[in-house]
């Protein structure tokens, strides 16, 4: 398919701009003026819309079908949320509007803060961070502020992270100026507590943990883990990416975590838009509250306001109060479920266990336990016996009309396929997916090339990723004209 630039033709355009009918001489010094216009697309609106419509048909979303991308919680995106976010009172509100004239927005944010705190059992929330990984960086920066305040910052330079952690955890640790201390996972997929004891000490600032872990397993000795850190004077950070497993069932604050980020876009259903937006709101125990980024939304009687006066604040982590549109959707989503959020998590967990039951005899199962909202199987035997990798399985699933699961993550499981159905999928869909997975095993035996050459039904066949990194063609180049 052609690039939009390849469809352009000089002096076509879609836009028309109002003519204010005022004097239009420019006051801009010649030296600062643009010397050559940018090559932006030039098309009339009909061709513009056709281009993007056609592009969309080459993309697969939740609306297209099952999208069991592990760790990403690809649940249905309620369409009412799009309606709400488009209300002019939200959509067209300037972020510098006076608080008195933004009471609806502030109340919504305040309520969301309260609700989020209740869901995780912590004391205070900042909505500012833009995504999970920024939430991590924010959380770690809060930990730094806390230890700085206590004079322990120079001493506590390590953050403990299990092998199973998502890549953003260690990356955030580095960017926050800490050192990663790895801890092993035991044979049940839990943190190896013996190993842990050796690694925690006065040098430890904290733990970063996803619970349930990226293996989809609940950390069975979480209370013990928590006390090891707390006893050492360190803090616990909870990576909330897997919160969809435990809403209304178990709260990180009650597990002993001191700070966490939500991925509002996962648990509370944001349209992921091909990569984002998200929101990485951070909740903290009271001891960390003074350090939260400013401003936070506070309530004074019947009025809501942005509180900028936070002397111990770490400062801003993003513009304004955060990605407000994401809050509108998350708040709406939560209000539709109400306390039924528990049922949401139960259903997500039921769906995952059902799939696990159907697949356990056909793929390798690294840890034989009930899973939470997702699970990891391995294509190790398949690779050994038939040369078909997790990637081949993933690509072949496309031909069955499914988006592949997450592959090759977590790293502790070779040839990992990480499957997360979410609560919004019907049993028939899970059945059909599992049947395809089983069928693919048979295909691997019978006709491995079917997998190796897959996909066969997409607009393109398998793409050369290594080649792309070598070629480094990262933008369209225009013929000199």
């Amino acid at each position, binding site marked *: 398919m052609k690039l939009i630039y390849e469809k352009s033709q000089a002096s076509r355009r*879609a836009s028309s*701009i109002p003519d204010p009918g005022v004097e239009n001489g420019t006051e801009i010094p010649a030296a600062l003026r643009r010397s050559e216009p940018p090559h932006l697309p030039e098309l009339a609106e009909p061709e513009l819309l056709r281009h993007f419509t056609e592009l969309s*048909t080459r993309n697969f979303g939740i609306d297209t079908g099952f999208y069991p991308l592990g760790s990403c919680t690809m649940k249905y995106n309620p369409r009412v949320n799009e309606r709400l976010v488009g209300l002019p009172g939200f959509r067209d509100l300037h972020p510098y509007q006076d608080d008195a004239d933004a009471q609806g927005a502030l109340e919504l944010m305040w309520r969301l803060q309260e609700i989020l705190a209740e869901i995780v059992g912590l004391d205070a929330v900042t909505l500012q961070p833009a995504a999970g990984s*920024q939430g991590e960086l924010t959380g770690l920066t809060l930990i730094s502020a806390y230890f700085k305040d206590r004079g322990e910052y120079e001493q506590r330079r390590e953050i403990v992270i299990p092998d199973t952690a998502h890549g953003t955890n260690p990356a955030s640790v580095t960017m926050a100026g800490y050192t990663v201390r790895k801890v092993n996972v035991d044979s049940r997929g839990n943190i190896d507590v013996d190993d842990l004891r050796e690694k925690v000490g006065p040098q430890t600032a904290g733990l970063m943990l996803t619970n349930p872990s990226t293996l989809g397993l609940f950390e069975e000795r979480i209370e013990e883990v928590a006390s090891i850190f707390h006893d050492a004077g360190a803090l616990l950070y909870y990576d909330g990416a897997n919160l969809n497993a435990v809403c209304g069932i178990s709260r990180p604050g009650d597990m002993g975590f001191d700070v966490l980020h939500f991925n509002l876009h996962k648990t509370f259903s944001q349209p992921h838009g091909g990569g984002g937006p998200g929101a990485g709101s951070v909740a903290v125990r009271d001891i960390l509250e003074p350090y939260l980024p400013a401003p936070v939304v506070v309530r004074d009687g019947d009025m809501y306001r942005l509180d900028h006066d936070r002397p111990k604040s770490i400062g801003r982590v*993003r513009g304004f109060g955060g990605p407000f549109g994401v809050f509108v959707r998350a708040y709406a989503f939560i209000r539709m479920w109400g306390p039924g959020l528990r049922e949401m998590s139960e259903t997500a967990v039921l769906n995952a266990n059902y799939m696990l039951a159907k697949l356990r005899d056909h793929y390798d199962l690294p840890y034989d336990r009930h899973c939470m909202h997702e699970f990891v199987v391995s294509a190790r035997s398949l690779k050994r016996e038939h040369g078909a990798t997790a990637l081949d399985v993933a690509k072949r699933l496309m031909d069955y009309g499914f988006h592949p699961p997450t592959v090759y993550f977590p790293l502790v499981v070779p040839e990992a396929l990480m499957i997360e159905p979410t609560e919004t999928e019907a049993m028939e869909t899970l059945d059909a997916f599992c049947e395809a997975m089983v069928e693919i095993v048979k295909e691997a035996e019978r006709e491995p090339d079917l997998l190796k050459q897959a996909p066969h039904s997409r607009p*393109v066949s398998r793409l050369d990723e290594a*080649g792309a990194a070598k070629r480094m063609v990262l933008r369209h180049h225009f013929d000199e004209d």
Partner: protein
Amino acid sequence: MTFTSLTDADRAAMLAAIGVESIEQLFDDIPAAVRLDRPLDIGPALSESELYDHMTALAARNVDVGRELSFLGAGMYDHYVPAVVDAVLQRGEFLTAYTPYQPEMSQGVLQAIFEYQTAVCELTGMDVSNASGYDGTTVAADACYVAKLATGRTRIVVAETLNPQVRQVVRTFAPGFGMEVVEVGHHDGLTDPEELRSAADGAAIAIFQQPNFLGLLEDAPALAEAASAGGALATAHVDPMSLGILEAPGRYGCALAIGEGQPAGNYLSYGGPHYGFLAARQDYARQLPGRIVGETSDFQGRRGYVLTLQTREQHIRREKATSNITSNQTLLALAGLVYLSWLGPSGLREVGERSHALAEHAKRRLGLPLAFEHPTFREFVVRTGRPAREVIDECKRRGVHPGYPIGRDYEGLDDALMMAFTERRTPEEIERLAEALSAVGVEVAA
């Protein structure tokens, strides 16, 4: 209102297949002490229509730019977002997809990002752009990290005329990066190239803004030259809507160009979600954070697009990663692409010219003393002779928000208002502004 399909029969069949009696049993791994033994206290479940009523009631308590005549800007601008942008964004195939890890499922969004990267490069005169940063503040922090990697140095220099929020975000993260921040003050609203030169000498990066936060046009080429003279990465924070008429940073020697995407195709949305853009000269491609899409081909040699340069990224390199972005702002960047495609080069130029012309018209019409006597793009600071806060409150009672109280961020400007003009404003509205100001005792021209 929930969004699940399971019936009681389904549940029973599934539990049987799993081999448990109840859903409870699936949670056996959770220690009793950390289980919640009461329902969440978050209000009752709402049906869609109840939710709609609740939310419209909340929305009605906000005064949006359709409900008052607003001259607020200060980084977020009321340019018109055409309906075709929404039409594209609401396509479920775009809206409900995630990061295109599986390129064969995601050629639509991958090609769109490639087109977006191209548009950003064209706007900024750069060689490479990422697929989006979170917003116009965080891309500045990103740029600092790039600079650290590229130069091995740790000093960050920012102009005082750089958006205060941007500076705050840089300050928040700099310590974690192992970097320190130095600020170069302004003189009569502008940054002095010579001061910048000395501050930037030996620094990793020097960031200035064009037009600057006060709406003024800096001598950007001079600043870029001064910044890079001592080896720092000259970084311009630019307004995309200015780039139809103002020179591209790549043309005056910047190493990096960053900015807030909101004015180009995103709604105001009380501050987000929007997109930040981050573009660089080819030299820094491998240090850029964020997703980057590259061209490649499939088994049959057909052109296609994939996420590339992934060895920068957290999922590969973990603690050694130079990019720590997973979820980004693709949907908003797509809005930017659609908007810029709708504008085309002539539309972009016209929006710039007309916003500028209206601002100049307003300067003349109001005849108020300018806080700074330098050329501006579409925003300028005037002195009202009264505390700005009062002027705002009183004008608002007349349905006009006259502008941003810039004294919030800069000393000595407590009586000043910063007023922004987009192509949506009209001479009649400027007349209303003049009337409102005059009614509250500000001495506008007759």
